[in-house]
């Protein structure tokens, strides 16, 4: 398995953010990680990326333990966070050069051109982050993750700030990387996207895994399986009654 969480848990002081979470993602697989706000998705992704240290359990990337062999694990990993924090004083292309050097990417110049083209950043190479829109900065963060040949890709709300064309292109990019053999863990609140691209879905609630399986398998667990949204709402116990007056309309 490219990515593996084994009885992972993470606490913030006395608050348990994630408890006893286990799942794996194989090469070429796209797994959706969904859950309501505060479910522990971002904490899980950050722990997988080596940003946060697990309080317990094991997290490995391509068999390398993120705690014991962090450098080997991180070399195989690309994390695209939800907030596009960039170095204010580095241009778009300099961010890619920085990443290329840190991850020792061969043929960087060629790859940079291709990734800028793919993410529609061509012509903006020399701009500073402050001169880019939110969506463009998000694309730069994603470009930094995709410019190298990572075997495991972690996306945390990758579509935030993107326009409809950008969303479609990003969806194609994610699917294309999976076809190329990458293991992808995708966290998003855009459930139609998750339903469309993910072969499996892990649902978290209050720090615990409450469901794990293909959408069709999860549909068998609930009464209304018309969409992933309905499945999600029922599994997490947040299936809302219709709003007053909505029936009359």
């Amino acid at each position, binding site marked *: 398995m490219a990515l593996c969480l084994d009885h992972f848990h993470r606490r913030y002081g006395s608050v348990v953010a994630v408890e006893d979470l286990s799942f794996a993602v194989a090469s070429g697989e796209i797994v959706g990680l969904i859950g309501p706000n505060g479910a522990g998705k971002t904490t899980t992704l950050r722990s997988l990326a*080596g940003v946060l240290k697990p309080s317990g359990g094991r997290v490995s990337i391509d068999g390398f333990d993120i705690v014991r062999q962090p450098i080997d694990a991180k070399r195989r990993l690309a994390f695209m*966070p939800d907030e*596009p924090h*960039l170095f*204010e004083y580095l241009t778009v292309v300099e961010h890619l050069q920085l990443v290329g050097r840190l991850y020792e990417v061969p043929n960087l110049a060629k790859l940079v051109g291709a990734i800028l083209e793919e993410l529609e950043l061509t012509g903006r190479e020399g701009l500073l982050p402050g001169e880019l829109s939110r969506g463009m900065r998000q694309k730069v963060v994603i470009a930094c993750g995709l410019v190298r040949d990572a075997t495991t890709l972690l996306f945390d709300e990758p579509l935030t700030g993107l326009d409809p064309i950008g969303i479609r292109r990003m969806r194609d990019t994610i699917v294309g990387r999976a076809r190329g053999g990458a293991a992808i863990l995708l966290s998003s609140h855009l459930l139609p996207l998750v339903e469309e691209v993910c072969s499996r879905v892990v649902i978290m609630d209050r720090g615990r895994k409450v469901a794990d399986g293909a959408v069709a398998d999860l549909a068998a667990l609930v009464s209304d399986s018309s969409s992933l949204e309905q499945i999600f709402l029922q599994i997490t116990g947040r299936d809302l009654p219709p709003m007053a007056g909505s029936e009359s309309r």
Partner: protein
Amino acid sequence: MIPSVREARAMLGVSLFIMTRSARNRALARLRRLRQPRYWLGALAGLAYLYFAFFRVGGVRPPSDAGDAPPPEIVVALLSARPTIAACLVAVLVAVAWIVPLGAGLLEFSRAEVLFLAPAPVRRQWLLVHRLLRSQLGLLVAAAVPALLLGTGGAGPRLRFALALWIVLVTLRLYFTGVSLARPRLAHPEPRARSAARLPLLLSVGAVIGVADVVRGWIAEGPVGSLDEFVDRIGALGHPGTIGWLLAPFGLVVRPLFDDTIAGYGVSLVGSLALLGATLLWVLKSDKAIEQATDVVVERHDTRALTQTRERYRMRPAPWALAPRGSVEGVFVWKSAIEAVRSINPRVVFSFVFPFTTFVVLGTATAAFPNGLVQVIASAGLLTAGFTTGMGPQIVRSDLRRDLVHLDVIKTWPVAPSSLIRGATLWPTVSLTGVSWLGLVIAAMLSPRAFPEVSTPWTWALALSAMVATPALILAQLVLHNGAALLFPAWVSLGGHRPRGLDAIGQRLITLGGTWLGLGLLTVPGALLGAVVWYALAPWLGPAALAPAALAGALFMAIEVYGLTIALGPAFDRLDLTDMERAE
């Protein structure tokens, strides 16, 4: 257009609501956090610092007895010249504002202000007034501290001094904002807008002529030969004569600072308040300029992330291209060098040039340096080197302390923490060492004329040994500061943000003290080794033995620092964003 009374009252209500609620909530939050040891320890240290700074060491003194000896002649001369000197300083600042945008913070709106106030159905001037009101607490503190430290007499005179200084500060802040608004309108096609922008500029030009006349007078009379002559010249400044009218507006604003009698103070206060009012009217009258300026800021917030990049960083080419292969440390040196190149702006240059120039001008003009300009410049070089080496690592934070804001990105990089720490501290070491070396070289080259009592071999031996020791001292401090940030992240602020409050002052003092203690501990073994080398080589090499002694000490220190970066690795691995201080 000036807001109507009704509109102004409504605006004032909103502003006061934001200010009072924010102040109350901030105070409560700070009180609550005192339950944690790091904050109450910091608060205790901060309180102790304030107590000793203001009430013990050179702080507030009781009023002097009537039977005291009369003050020396030089003090009398300086006292009588204070208004003119202060007016000259204000005039220079005001003139500089037209050349270098000093800004005043009034046009730097927070994201929340843009989000809530910009779409509100009020005029854009209101945003400016709101910012002015919000800045008052800081200005009051800025006025109260010198009144406590420098003021004489009881509470009354100190209060009067604080009020006068507050008016000066508010007037300057408003004026700088007005300049920011007026600069783009100096060539406006509308004659009214153009003249409104140009009139204050003309006043500044007049003031510059006045100050230039004072300087010309000093130069024409030649260097000061004795203390008596210095006293005479200072005394003459108290009677400015022909230049008086040029400096009058600036004299008006500073006059209440120096009026000892209540009646005189009252009259001066009316004058300075009138000038403050005129400045306020000038700024608020520029409604179109305010509209445009605030539109720019609002638009920038709308399309940008967390910081105002355009002001802070200017697009300039990278100093060198990053090689595709090489050490991790090299990446960070490259990254920090780019940051340095792109963050240089007129304000940064001014903050370096101004103290140096002031020191040289004052040093040349006074009798403090008997060997004249050469000695002043050599001393300035030595001071620069000393200050850069001692305080530079505390002030320049372009290392991990600034990059911790990107911790979630940095921690995903496949690099050893020790390489990261070394890389992050290398560029500031190089740049600070460069500044320090420049100061030392200037001092050494001018030494034969500036300090003739020091022989040439000793001069160069001292300069070389200082140049050898400087990078080790700077690197050690930077690693210690970064180590403190990694080991005690709760005591460190993210990025460029500096937390406020008494406890934060105390925390900074404790970490600074700890760093200096650590530096002392790191220096002792190297110094001992250097001493051994000195005693071994001095009989053969004489003063030149200082350089190898310094080299031995510096090398030993570098090895210690290298070991320290490795030892700090686990601390970086443990570092958690949730432990760190966030912006309030």
